[in-house]
């Protein structure tokens, strides 16, 4: 699959438009169907396509595992952080009204931020799931070997 020039070219051409479409779904969720969750799946699909065509290694170079884990946490923290911001600005948890002087505008900002948090986490999780399943090595867990062999394998 990796040596097929048609697939490689298609993947290169499609990569950016898929992400752009994902961003559209993310930020246009106020007006049309869509939002962070759907966008996250779409954006992850672009990276998964890349990894399918160019290999898991190349995919991991594009988004290393530490970055993936960081994004995973960042989304939850962003969402939760918006809630904490609401608290610290005198409102209750997840109160968007207090984020800006105008409650309606505050709601807009809050909704966009939390949807972005959802999108971030979902993208990262989908990518992590793909890499974990595709890169699963049953040998690592199959039977006990010495712990030296254990520690020499893959980094986190």
């Amino acid at each position, binding site marked *: 699959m990796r040596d097929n020039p048609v697939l490689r070219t298609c993947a290169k051409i499609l990569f950016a438009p898929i992400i752009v479409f994902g961003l559209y779904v993310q930020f246009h969720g106020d007006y049309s169907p869509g939002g962070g*969750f759907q966008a996250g799946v779409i954006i992850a699909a672009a990276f998964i396509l890349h990894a399918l065509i160019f290999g898991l290694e190349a995919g991991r170079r594009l988004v290393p595992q530490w970055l993936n884990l960081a994004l995973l946490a960042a989304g939850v923290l962003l969402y939760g952080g918006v809630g904490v911001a609401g608290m610290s600005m005198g409102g209750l948890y997840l109160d968007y009204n207090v984020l800006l002087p105008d409650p309606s505008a505050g709601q807009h900002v809050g909704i966009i931020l939390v949807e972005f948090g959802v999108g971030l986490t979902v993208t990262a999780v989908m990518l992590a799931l793909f890499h974990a*399943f595709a890169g699963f090595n*049953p040998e690592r867990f199959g039977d006990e070997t010495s712990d030296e062999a254990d520690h020499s394998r893959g980094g986190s």
Partner: protein
Amino acid sequence: MIDPVSIITDSWNYLIVICLMMGGLFIVISQNNLVKKLVGLAIFQTSVFLFYITVGKMAGGTAPILLDSADVAYSNPLPHVLILTAIVVGVATTALGLALVLRIHAAFGSIEDDEVLTIKAEAALPRVTRAASETDSEARS
């Protein structure tokens, strides 16, 4: 605007959806294969989603994305929100379940419930027999 015939006839929706739910549950309980159990669970949950969305449907209504004209009936957005959450929860459960299935296969060499259960059943045996079967399995590996 409301078609009375469609209201009467649409009540069948619930009945068929209940059949679908129970079909999914049937797979979860009756099947022996760990992957097929998860498939059944996904079908069970998807059917429950259909039930919720049916509750939210309003006859002659449209999707709850507001239009400029005033006299439009919208379907209930609340079940949609609940089900969006539930779908995500469902896929999370499926992913974790599949990861467990892979680990079980790596550790036991089987994804059939009865075979894995047999190995588990050894644990219920008195200590002596269990120790014997453990040595046995180690000798094999």
